[in-house]
């Protein structure tokens, strides 16, 4: 009975361990950096082959070793791009999404070596180098993505101050309602500034404003700057505008961190599709003009 209980406990423990692993171990550390080692081995083997195999008259994508590297690189690129398909299909097991993502990151990094060796260090203004450069841009944005995913979520959480996004918007609405009634005694010019501040969309400003956190056309900031501090009503409006500015700052902080978290995908994904197109043109053109 005791032994059965123990066995059950062990079983439960190992189950829990598995769950902990799938839940709480970063995809970078997955299975003790398994895919990092596989990627390093791939790089090591391809570099050794490049150095040891004598290619006449010079290393070139068209030698047998060059074709081998090119085939590996092509297969890797196609497989890596399938992450977008894989992540939309919920499955479990050996090819869990985490394992897939881990392999995606490390094998993607090894493409720098495989792709560069495939070029034979021959670079020019042509479709072949276009494919190579697109590949490098995709990899660089991917590296950026991994870095920001590892560092930014903490500051995203810190910036929230235990508020949800909905509450941030709600708080702004509450301030706006008070502003509207507080601004009733103001003169025309000042009332117009308050109206402008109230009418401006909270999300106004383009991608650049979001990424930099600088909003030069912020109506609330303008209203604050233009408000005279004479009457009691004006002082109250100023106090509310300051509250509004602070609330906007929190929302904009949220926007900035999210933009920094998301911007790379707007390069990574379209350039991946462009890369597949360039790769197709590269392969077809090489054999079209064999």
């Amino acid at each position, binding site marked *: 009975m005791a032994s059965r209980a123990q066995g059950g406990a062990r079983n439960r423990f190992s189950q829990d361990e598995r769950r902990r692993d799938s839940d709480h171990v970063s995809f970078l550390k997955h299975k003790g950096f398994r895919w990092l080692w596989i990627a390093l081995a791939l790089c090591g083997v391809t570099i050794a082959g490049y150095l040891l*195999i004598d290619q006449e008259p010079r290393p070139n994508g068209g030698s047998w070793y060059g*074709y081998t590297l090119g085939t590996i690189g092509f297969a890797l690129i196609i497989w890596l791009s399938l992450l977008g398909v894989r992540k939309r299909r919920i499955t479990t097991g050996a090819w869990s999404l985490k394992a897939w993502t881990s392999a995606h990151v490390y094998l993607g990094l090894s493409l720098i070596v495989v792709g560069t060796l495939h070029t034979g260090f021959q670079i020019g203004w042509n479709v072949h180098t276009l494919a190579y450069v697109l590949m490098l841009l995709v990899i660089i944005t991917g590296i950026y993505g991994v870095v920001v995913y590892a560092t930014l979520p903490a500051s995203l959480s810190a910036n929230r101050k235990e508020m949800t996004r909905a509450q941030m918007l709600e708080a702004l609405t509450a301030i706006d309602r008070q502003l509207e009634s507080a601004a009733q005694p103001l003169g025309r010019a000042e009332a117009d500034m308050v109206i402008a501040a109230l009418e401006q969309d909270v999300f106004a400003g*383009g*991608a650049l404003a979001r990424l930099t956190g600088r909003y030069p056309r912020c109506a609330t900031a303008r209203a604050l700057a233009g408000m005279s501090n004479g009457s009691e009503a004006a002082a109250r409006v100023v106090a509310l505008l300051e509250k509004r500015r602070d609330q906007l700052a929190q929302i904009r902080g*949220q926007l900035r961190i*999210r933009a920094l978290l998301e911007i790379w995908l707007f390069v990574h994904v*379209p350039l991946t599709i*462009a890369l597949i197109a360039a790769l197709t043109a590269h392969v077809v053109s090489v054999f*079209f003009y064999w």
Partner: protein
Amino acid sequence: MAFLIRTIDFTAAGRELIRDRVVEQDSLTIGRAAENDIHLPDLAVEQHHVRIVAQADGTLGVEALGTLGFGLDGRVVNQGVIDPRTGGEIALGAARLAVARESDGHTSITIRQVAAEEGKGDALRGFALASVLPSKRAMSWLFAGAILLALLMVPVASHLLRTPVKNDPEGKTPGQVVMDAAWSTGALSLKHHSLEDNCESCHVAAFESVADETCISCHKETGDHAAMPRLAKGMAPLSTGDALQWRIATSLGKEGPLGCVSCHSEHEGKVRQKPASEAFCADCHDALDTRLTDTALGNAHDFGKEHPQFRPAFYASFGAARPVRASLDSKPIERSGLKFPHDVHMDARGGAARMALSLPQYGAPLECKDCHSLDADRIGFKEVKMEDACEGCHSLVSGRSAGGGFSKLRHGDVKDLAEDLARVGTGPRADLSAGRSRPGQFARGGAYAADFGRPVRAYIGLSNALSPGGICTECHLPARGPTGQADLVPVNLPDRFLTTGFFSHEAHKREECTDCHAADTSKAATDLLIPDLKSCRDCHLGASAVKTKKIVPSECAMCHAYHLPSGQWSPQGNAPHYTPAPPPASKPGGAKTVVAAIAGKARK
């Protein structure tokens, strides 16, 4: 403390109803129960939900009476403080209670109902970066479409739709395929640079490798290294990877490893194509006899380590039709048909030197260059002409000419000599005595006037000249013609001694001629004065040798060319494929065939 409580409602018609009441209390309770100071009939509100207490400093303390919190300025809290001067808003269910200080000193609490926000989820979407950037999908389609159209579809379509034209060896015809420049992996070599915009001149058909046939359509004159089957047999075995690649490539229609493009790889930049490396030659010529067992060629893989002795071409017998080749190790004897002791002519104190000193065109003892002058290609020497090189001393003057100069015997043909000698004894007959001429038709200009020579004397002159001790045999060997008449052995000297290699005399001009050619000690013209392998190795060792002040690492291509016939590769000057003097054919009719012929045969 007085609170002004203002309730704002809307009638069914949408009209606003405002009710004010003043409550003189220091604290207020808010809840769903009717006994609260502010009664909110809303199930989301507790019976006794919130108490507002006026504090000594003029602010209002707000606290939840139960466990359920309330909204204060958008944030859910259990207690908080509102300064009526700046105001605040309490949210309880659908009600919003705005707290503010009125001008009369009252603290007002304005209650209004807000409609449930239906678009809240949509508003949250604004937090995503996607709301301010074009969609990833649209950008993907745009980029991929532009690349596929411009870099793939346009060139492919224009290649398939063109009308093929015959190749132009001048490379002046522009290409028809548009936008295929982006497919080029690199600039073409100098010689092919004019084809840069005409890809289809080499890449004729889609998905077909560049064919030898296409190369030969312009390079008609290029000779092959050897017959194709012998090249294949002599080749060293390929590495596993290369063998696999060639198996796949040839099955897909690519020319084999002996095709033009497997050596002449293009698109490597706008430079002169490099000569082949030593390894390229040594691949086959190292241990060649193990694969090509019947070859007459010696094995070679490094000039300093393994290279056969030179086998110059020369005439081994008098009057032979063709030169032969023999190793310098066999001490070959040249039968050129000339007598020429180099030592006599080069001795700075001998008779030849004295004679040269006395002649204005020399003025010094003879030197090599007085007779031997370099060819235009700076590799070989021009033919030595008797009239230019020898006649200064070995005069052929035969008498005085009518114009007061000298008449000369013509050199080169015995028939010319016979004519000239016959004319020696002739000439205007002297007058019999001063002041008298012959009469009538016998006078000069008359029908019977004639200048007679003495036939016997002319015949004897020719015979003497050609016989041993005669003027001709100073340099030539006497012989007899088919009818027994006196004649000379014809002079036979090959155009080039080293027929399969190139020796640039220009490159060696800082050396003395006699450093390599033992001319100053050569007593007879039968000495073949070509330096041997050992003397070259004083300075030249293989490509792997270490370069020093004296040692020159020498690749095969320094002396040899691959295609026959062809010239020597050099970094400047002539292009590699200029045609030098044809080498002597080893057997009649067995001359090297051009690539086209061989390739034609191989294809059959």
